[in-house]
């Protein structure tokens, strides 16, 4: 980037203040669900995640063009970044229209890169506004993270900007899924476009792939057969999202909420589409519990994306040693590194630097585990 060598990097910066609120309260995205999320007790998360990135950028040679209030300025002040200019004033309750208009304001002033904080919906709105005119980089804060424009976590996003002269650019898909369909259990990703993204290997997440082939089905069946064979009647099993855990449920004789979290014990379903509160209510006393999760597509997130109901409190109640990760060999081939980003870095570290993933009947693979913070 020429801007880095000659003067400050001029970067557009905006936050979608409501992104990610649906996750911990069991909604699968916040698009059109803001009131319901608030009613269920959701609190804003994107502000905190943006501040974590911005704090690491304090003192860097970057000039931010941003929006007023919760859409950008508040976080810049909070993180101690002084070199910024508010070029767009948003309404108190911002909307997708504000995101689009802010992007246009950035473009008219001239920027070298656009940094945003949100989820797939935000990425879609940003890309819809700026197209391929500037590179994009996302601070991950959404419920769904299928696009390939996000840093693997807030710290990694900052790292990319701090080492911009070392990065190369690659094309990455902007993907979103229909949230209405998603809530009904239908996973149908749609590519909205191809953005340019600064890239440091291991710091930008890959687009999530959905694998559908015959041998995958056999592999899933083998995993499900093994997991059900080792299940104990005195243990609560929390099944995370995805088709591999759905196959485990099928072997137990029930249909799983594909994208939600279900709980079983002794062959009975205790909870369907559980949220954090529901999970915690089951984990009282000395009850034995295990969490069975599958990494999300090529991104490789074991915990932290699409599984927010399995929160740090839930994980501590169950114990990191009682997390069983499952994935088919094909999915693992496309996922060289796994990530855990629960939002609690001390907890993330308790998982260690490698993790065993059950990939067949009585068989697993030892994979590298990153939590770059």
């Amino acid at each position, binding site marked *: 980037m020429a801007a880095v060598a000659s003067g400050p990097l001029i970067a557009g910066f905006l936050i979608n203040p409501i992104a990610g609120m649906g996750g911990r309260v069991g909604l699968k995205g916040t698009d059109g669900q803001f009131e319901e999320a608030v009613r269920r007790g959701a609190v804003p998360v994107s502000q905190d995640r943006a501040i974590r990135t911005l704090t690491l950028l304090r003192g860097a040679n970057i000039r931010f063009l941003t929006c007023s209030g919760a859409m950008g300025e508040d976080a810049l002040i909070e993180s101690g970044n002084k070199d910024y200019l508010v070029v767009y004033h948003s309404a108190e309750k911002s909307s997708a229209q504000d995101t689009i208009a802010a992007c246009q304001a950035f473009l008219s002033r001239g920027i070298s890169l656009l940094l945003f904080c949100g989820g797939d919906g935000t990425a879609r709105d940003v890309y819809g506004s700026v197209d391929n005119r500037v590179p994009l980089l996302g601070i991950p804060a959404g419920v769904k993270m299928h696009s390939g424009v996000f840093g693997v976590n807030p710290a990694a996003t900052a790292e990319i900007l701090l080492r911009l002269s070392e990065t190369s650019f690659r094309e990455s898909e902007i993907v979103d899924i229909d949230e209405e369909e998603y809530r009904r259990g239908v996973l149908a990703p749609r590519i909205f476009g191809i953005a340019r993204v600064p890239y440091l290997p291991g710091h930008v997440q890959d687009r999530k792939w959905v694998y559908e082939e015959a041998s995958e089905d056999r592999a899933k069946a083998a995993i499900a057969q093994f997991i059900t064979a080792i299940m104990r009647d005195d243990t609560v099993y929390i099944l995370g999202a995805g088709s591999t855990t759905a196959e485990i449920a099928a072997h137990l004789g029930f249909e799983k909420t594909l994208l939600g979290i279900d709980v079983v014990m002794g062959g009975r379903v205790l909870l369907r589409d559980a949220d954090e509160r529901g999970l915690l209510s089951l984990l009282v006393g000395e009850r034995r519990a295990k969490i069975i999760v599958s990494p999300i597509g090529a991104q490789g997130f074991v915990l932290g994306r699409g599984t927010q109901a399995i929160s740090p409190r839930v994980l501590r109640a169950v114990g990191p040693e009682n997390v069983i990760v499952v994935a088919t060999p094909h999915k693992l081939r496309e996922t060289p590194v796994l990530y855990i980003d629960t939002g609690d870095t001390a907890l993330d570290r308790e998982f260690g630097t490698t993790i065993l993933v*059950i990939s067949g*009947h*009585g068989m697993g693979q*030892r994979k590298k585990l990153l939590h770059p913070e």
Partner: protein
Amino acid sequence: MKTKITLDEGEMPKRWYNILTDLPAPLDPPLHPATKKPVTPDDLHAIFPMELIKQEMSPKRFIDIPDEVAEILRLWRPSPLYRAARLEKALKTPARIYYKYEGVSPPGSHKPNTSVPQAYYNMKEGIERIATETGAGQWGSALAFATQQFDMACTIYMVRSSYAQKPYRKIMMQVWGAECIPSPSTRTNAGRSILEKYPDTSGSLGIAISEAVEDAATHDNTNYSLGSVLNHVCLHQTVIGLEAREQLAKESLYPDMVIGCVGGGSNFAGISFPFAGDKLTGKHKEVDLVAVEPSACPTLTKGIYTYDYGDVAGLTPLLKMYTLGHDFIPPSIHAGGLRYHGASPLVSRLVHDGIIRAVSYHQNEVFEAAQLFARTEGIIIAPETAHAAKAVVDEAIKCRESGEEKVILFNNSGHGHFDLSAYEAFLQGRLEDYEYPADLIREALAHIPSST
């Protein structure tokens, strides 16, 4: 400092060492699969020559190597013992590393140490043909070489996927005059019934064993031969350790550690049993014997010590050994020779009794050690052997940290010239670190009420 310590042909051991006689209590006998009673020599005689059956249960501490066998073994024996000085230097270790190199045999591994005597004893009893199975082809090529030396016919059932994907071992067998058949085949009832149900199957070692045993049992002129696991196979391999002990003695040394890889257990038995005997009889109580296996198939480190079948179908006698269960199908790691659910009853017993300890490693770290070995000592070793090399590297690093000048001996059981595709996968970052989920399995098993 000598790079190679060699013995003259006349110094080659004249007798094999039988560790059975030095065990503090007898080995639990193999059981008949139908009656669950100890097998008798007659039970085994349908497929094995009587001399090998006697060796399987022999009360003699030493058994003479027949002249006709020794004459062929001398084509490559005594094998050299190398000082791995370049590896030591790279590791900056005060440890002294020695390795016995078995890759100098015509088939390129330790396997002909037993295929030659097995072919010989069969020939002496009038057997004209030997049937066996092979996975990646190391054992098949060793038996093809041995039967050819005694003008015998040889039929090898090779797992179909290997037959198609690893053609060079198959060509070696054919050059030595053996018939190599992809298994399952239409030659046997076992093969036909599998093909009827699964016409596109890629085969397995278990199926190939069933075919070879059936072939031997249904032809009077034909016997069956096994390349590992059984006591007589371990016995024949003891020439490795006996030579190594003599070679080290020439330098006035005795090893602090002896290391080898374990699949069925024969190459490890070969290098370690003479030293295990010294330990059992109190001559060298302190020698540390280390068996190395893959994390994907961790029989000795994670299995249970019990009676189990030697094959998938449950046709063989029940053997008391460490096992992951005869229905366990290990994943396709590149060290194909270490993919076995059980282990030699003798090696198992010594692990159980604490004479030998076992460790396990993942594929990628094993290939890293193999690459280091190739870049220092020059030899590109077999993926199986690389497991031993990894343990050697780890132990040498421990010596660097502690300052100990340990003498480490390991068995470099064969070269990896037919395994270059595995090295390619390693270099391209395509190797998976398979691992047996022992804790989950143990936890689940512990909860199952005992049926007894």
